[in-house]
């Protein structure tokens, strides 16, 4: 990652929710950065804490009795401790967020234009006519045909893809510096998905806006992200630039993700290898390395020691939180990339300390 001052810096963020069954550790000490004008992709399964960390950025978890610690630095201010009124001034203004399901995320009973107008008039003193004009402008910008007519329609009169475009337009009404997109394409079908992603790329180029895109889909981040952070059970397990991640992934979880995606250029007979098991409960998490119960290469003491994010030798902008030695990892990945299954790779490489 570039050495310039990041737009958003998250430092050791922890978010806990008290619940009837115990404390939910949704976010367990994560640290990442977003650079101006660049796209960060946050990848993980559901329950990895990826959405919660973004909602917390905007202070949208405060209402639910969350216990938040750590820092979220944005333009010199710590959003964790910022008073509500000031945080509200940032929401929808400097930092905007769009969500997964645009049909339910837009109010069904107000016209689309009205919702856009509301977004800008909440933060700026503009007349209704000016706001409306801007809404039409942005609807056009995101590629909605005939925006002057569609601005008066209701959400249910838009198609799925257009709705998402409208949500994006709404997020852009105040020229945000950072756009957080939480699973923006998950609810759309594939062709529309591609269009939306292309749109987002274009907007970033034209507006110079930073984007955080949250998804479980590696294909999506491969498309649009400049940098990627992989989350598991509330922690970040690996961060790197996109190219580096796909070329030389370091974390066994990342390997598992990559191996479970079908590849057009992979051998025909190669089987997909899913990661065994299910994501852990965020109330009773595994001790030590959270991934160890599902890791094919785990060692006994991995259940005791917490791995920390550390740079990969030779790649200072690539960090991983794993207790395996770098060299072992390199060899394991070499096997896996050649088509071996995790068992075969393990057998081939041998891990120090592992039973023979």
């Amino acid at each position, binding site marked *: 990652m570039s050495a310039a001052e990041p737009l958003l810096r998250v430092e050791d963020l922890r978010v806990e929710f008290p619940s009837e069954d115990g404390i939910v550790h949704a976010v367990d000490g994560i640290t990442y950065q977003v650079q101006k004008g660049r796209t960060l992709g946050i990848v993980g399964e559901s329950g990895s804490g990826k959405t919660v960390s973004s909602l917390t950025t*905007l202070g*949208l978890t405060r209402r639910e009795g969350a216990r938040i610690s750590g820092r979220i630095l944005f333009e010199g201010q710590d959003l964790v401790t910022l008073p509500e009124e000031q945080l*509200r*001034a*940032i*929401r*929808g*203004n400097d930092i*905007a*967020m769009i*969500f997964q*399901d645009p049909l*339910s*995320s*837009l*109010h*069904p*009973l*107000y016209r689309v234009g009205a919702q856009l107008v*509301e*977004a800008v008039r*909440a*933060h700026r003193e503009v007349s209704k006519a000016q706001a409306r004009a801007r809404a039409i402008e942005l609807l056009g910008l995101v590629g909605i045909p005939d925006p002057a007519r569609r601005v008066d329609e*209701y959400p*249910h009169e838009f198609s799925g893809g257009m709705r998402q475009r409208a*949500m994006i337009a*709404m997020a852009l009404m105040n020229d945000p510096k950072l756009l957080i997109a939480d699973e923006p394409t998950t609810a759309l079908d594939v062709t529309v998905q591609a269009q939306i992603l292309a749109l987002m790329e274009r907007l970033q180029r034209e507006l110079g806006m930073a984007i955080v895109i949250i998804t479980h889909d590696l294909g999506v981040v491969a498309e649009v992200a400049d940098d990627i952070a992989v989350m598991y059970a509330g922690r970040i397990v690996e961060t790197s630039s996109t190219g580096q991640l796909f070329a030389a992934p370091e974390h066994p979880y990342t390997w598992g993700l990559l191996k479970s995606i079908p590849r057009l250029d992979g051998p025909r007979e190669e089987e997909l290898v899913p990661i065994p098991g299910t994501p852990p409960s965020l109330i009773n998490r595994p001790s030590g390395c959270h991934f160890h119960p599902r890791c094919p290469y785990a060692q006994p003491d991995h259940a005791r020691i917490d791995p920390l994010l550390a740079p990969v030798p030779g790649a200072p902008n690539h960090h991983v939180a794993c207790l395996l030695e770098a060299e072992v990892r390199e060899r394991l990945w070499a096997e896996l990339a050649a088509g071996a299954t995790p068992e075969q790779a393990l057998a081939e490489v041998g891990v120090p300390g592992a039973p023979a």
Partner: protein
Amino acid sequence: MIRYIIRRLLWGVLLLIIVAGLVFVLFRVLPTTNPAVLRAGRDPQPKLIKEIEVVLGLNKSLPTQFWDYLKEVFLHFNLGYSYYSQESVRSLIVERLPATLSLTLGAAVLWVLGGLSVGIISALRRHSLLDRGAMGSALVLISVPEFWLGLVLLFLFASDIGKFKIFPGAGSYVPLTTDPWKWFTSLIMPWFVLAAGSAAIFARLMRSSLSEAMKEDYIRTARAKGLPEKAVVRQGVRAAINPIVTLFGLEVGVLLGGAILVETVFNIPGVGRLAYQSIQSSDFPVVQGTVLLASMFIILANIVVDVAYAYLDPRVRYS
């Protein structure tokens, strides 16, 4: 939309005819007192009963009576004449309508304002002391019989018989045009009694409806847009209010046919009391007239509510 409304109105007329027929059958065929017998005194000779039946038109065959009645009502708007006072039913009803309208519409305002505001506050402060207190009171008000509540209020606050002489007592209703202030003060307690149960139901409904609405995704979006919380709540209320509008319209429709209990306790000369008195004395023409009126209001209320719903929820469209 216009075509839809016209179609509904036409069906409404057909429904009124069916209702008229049902009332006809109910009161003539089912075992209640034959008005001719009532009229004929304690030792009615058959000859006398027959004579009275002829005079009242009860001797003709049922279908003939019904057909005559329908013709009069739908062609001439003539609802017949009371067996007792010979006053035209239409003028009896028209005379009493303002009182019922005053009572119903005033109560409606009260229960909308009261019910909604309590419901909204309760929804936003769920499980607080305020919420529990409000919902508990609501339960009490829904359960309490109207008649009893009216009596209790009179015995507590009526200026003639109450412990604390604040509001005018039973029988003090005057038309709006006669004395606006007296009209208003005499209706305060009746409005409260009539509104109490409905307001409580509305409050509970609004509470659950709004609680649900506030969990919706678009509320999250609204907050993410940086809207002040008041605006966010307003969006929630806007979504939560639709089922309540339906209920409101129907309730008003029903009550426009006469709030019998409240009108009786507070002695308000409305349509409800007229209906009750006429049923007691088997005054068929008046009974039929009041039932038709009540049915008409309910039918209209249904149509209005359905049309309003189309405006309130743009996703609803009538072909």
